[in-house]
């Protein structure tokens, strides 16, 4: 008891000193209330003033590398266009979202209300994206999503001002289901994390497999982001399945592939994994991943003129190899370019701008890309095989795959 009283005394004193008077609080509130007004006056800009683009991406934490690659590729396209899009110069404001969903709405508001950006490009983490969507829908700010695959962004929460240059979680998983069924496997199991992206992936895999006559008999999950896969792996042999589909990303993916091999399952139960299992993780995986079949909307060895030129330019700018995240960042800039070129840089022609982006036909490094009515990419899902530390393309699993956009009122 004495401990407690001792500790409480100095704290009470500190509060008294720091507590602001009612007048200070009121003054502060009054001042704060005028801030939006100031903003309104400032918003009248000269036609030639630079367009403000907010890049809200992870620049620290687990996804930092993804944020850096998206940014480098985004800037690469702008540089290739001579620094202007549709005759408009661009001013880029970067904000580290730390992949922290709790700060998603706050960070987005900061860009929209304080920095008064015209466009937001973001982000990687689906949880952060959900907070951004709310703000984008309320403010009408143009939002281009360069990675996060949450189905809702181009589904139930779709909006005229929200576009995606990456993928929906459903898409690569649907492709993997098709790959499994096309390989002749009839009974399948699916393993993933118990979270939104995992559930959406499992649904996509089941649908892709079902449409080609295969059946998913069980979906097994591990709480996110745990990497103790042993309990799930031990159950797989007892299910009597021909093959196993999987979705994990980042560090969890590395551990999963290694544990799968250590459990002796690699040669007995073929694994068909989401491309995110082996993208950016092959260095850590080493030889364990050799021969692993995956499905994704991008691959190594596509060997098209567009992809070769993009890879060379990216490597020169960033000093490292391009990956799927770089492609998505590049295409986010391509979508913005299409929109601004259609309205000659006049950002106030909102409807014409949105319409131009929605009907864009991109020559993407990944191959041809258009947008679905719910503003999600329509693109090929490639079958890929890991060879010599690369995700080499091994045919097209599904051509021009569109997300069904369930729940979107624009379709």
């Amino acid at each position, binding site marked *: 008891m004495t401990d407690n009283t001792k500790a409480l005394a100095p704290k009470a004193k500190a509060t008294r000193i720091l507590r602001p008077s009612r007048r200070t609080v009121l003054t502060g509130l009054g001042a704060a209330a005028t801030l939006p007004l100031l903003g309104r006056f400032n918003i009248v800009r000269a036609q030639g003033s630079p367009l403000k683009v907010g890049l809200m991406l992870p620049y620290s934490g*687990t996804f930092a590398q993804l944020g850096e690659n998206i940014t480098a590729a985004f800037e690469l396209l702008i540089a290739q266009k001579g620094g202007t899009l549709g005759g408009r110069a661009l001013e880029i404001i970067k904000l580290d979202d730390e992949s922290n969903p709790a700060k998603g709405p706050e960070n987005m508001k900061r860009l929209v209300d304080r920095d008064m950006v015209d466009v937001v490009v973001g982000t990687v983490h689906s949880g952060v994206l959900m907070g951004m969507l709310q703000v984008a829908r309320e403010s009408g700010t143009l939002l281009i999503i360069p990675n996060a695959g949450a189905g809702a962004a181009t589904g139930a929460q779709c909006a005229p001002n929200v576009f995606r240059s990456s993928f929906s979680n459903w898409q690569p998983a649907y492709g993997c289901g098709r790959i499994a069924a096309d390989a002749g496997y009839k009974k399948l199991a699916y393993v993933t994390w118990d979270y939104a992206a995992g559930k959406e992936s499992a649904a996509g895999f089941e649908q892709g497999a079902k449409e080609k006559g295969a059946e998913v008999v069980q979906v097994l999950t591990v709480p996110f982001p745990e990497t*103790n896969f042993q309990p799930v792996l031990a159950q797989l042999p007892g299910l009597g399945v021909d093959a196993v589909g999987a979705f994990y990303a980042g560090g969890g993916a590395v551990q999963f592939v290694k544990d799968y091999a250590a*459990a002796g399952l690699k040669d007995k139960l073929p694994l068909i994994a989401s491309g995110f299992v082996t993208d950016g993780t092959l260095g850590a995986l080493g030889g364990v991943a050799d021969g692993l079949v995956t499905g994704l909307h991008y691959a190594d060895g596509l060997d098209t003129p567009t992809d070769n030129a993009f890879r060379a330019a990216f490597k020169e700018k960033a000093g490292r190899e391009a990956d799927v995240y770089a492609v998505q960042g590049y295409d986010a800039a391509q979508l913005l370019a299409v929109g601004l070129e259609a309205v000659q840089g006049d950002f106030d022609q909102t409807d014409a701008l949105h319409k131009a982006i929605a009907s864009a036909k991109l020559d993407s490094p990944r191959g041809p890309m258009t947008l679905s009515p719910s503003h999600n990419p329509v693109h090929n899902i490639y079958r890929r095989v890991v060879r010599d530390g690369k995700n080499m393309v091994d045919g097209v699993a599904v051509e021009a795959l569109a997300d069904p956009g369930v729940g979107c009122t624009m379709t």
Partner: protein
Amino acid sequence: MDAATLLTQVLNGLQYGLLLFLVASGLTLVFGIMGVINLAHGSLTMVGAYLAYAIGAATGSLWLALPLAVAAGAVFGAVLERVLIRRFYDRAHLDQVLLTFALILLFEEGRSLLVGNDFHSVPIPPVLDWSVPISSIFSYSAYRLFVLAVCVVIAALLFLVIHRTRFGGMIRASAEKPEMVEALGIPVSRVQMAVFALGTALAMLAGALSAPLTSVYPNMGDGVLIVSFVVVVIGGIGSIAGAFWGALLIGLVDTLGKALVPDLAGIAVYVLMAAVLLWRPTGLFARAA
């Protein structure tokens, strides 16, 4: 569930539980003897894991990393206790929580500066990189069996030290009646330093041992910390035996729960904790008040 699957799942549960014991034993000693809530204890496993990764990357051998993690942990723990923790024994728990939370931030930032934010896998030593067939399809990694054995040996050593040696007697006495121990001329402050060093060494060893199993990644200690606190609460604060049986219980319940009722796997451990607290509010092996 057939016999082979059940055997595998029980092995998984034991191995997970024993690793938890290494972490929870240090936590329960520090909490029980010094009354310090050490939130940074989980981060210490992260430090141990990254140490194993760094040494493994530099020398290609995990065998060097394991004893080094223990030695570095002991020295680091002793310094930490002497320089910082010591000043907080008489303070309120909130101050201790703030201090140790700050340590988490420092460790994570230090890790970020020194090694970066990437996920790294740590190779299993070639000697143990094989599997023991359990059924026609499933095999059990030899390294996991090795971890199991190491943990059992350490648990046995810890029991012997605590219950059969003079030093162990001082630790137990310091937990019960520190004033009396002081009056008898035993340097309690040195016992405290030794206990903190021991706890840190065990946490870092747990991190180094599990590095090849879980890989190393930022904030990897957070999850461990929460489950370890559950173990401490279930076992009874300050009790090594409680930490041991509590950790095994949690390991088995968590693993079998995931296998049998996957929908409830996330909460099984906490339901168990609530049930134990209702039945024995001070934990399974609490000292008589």
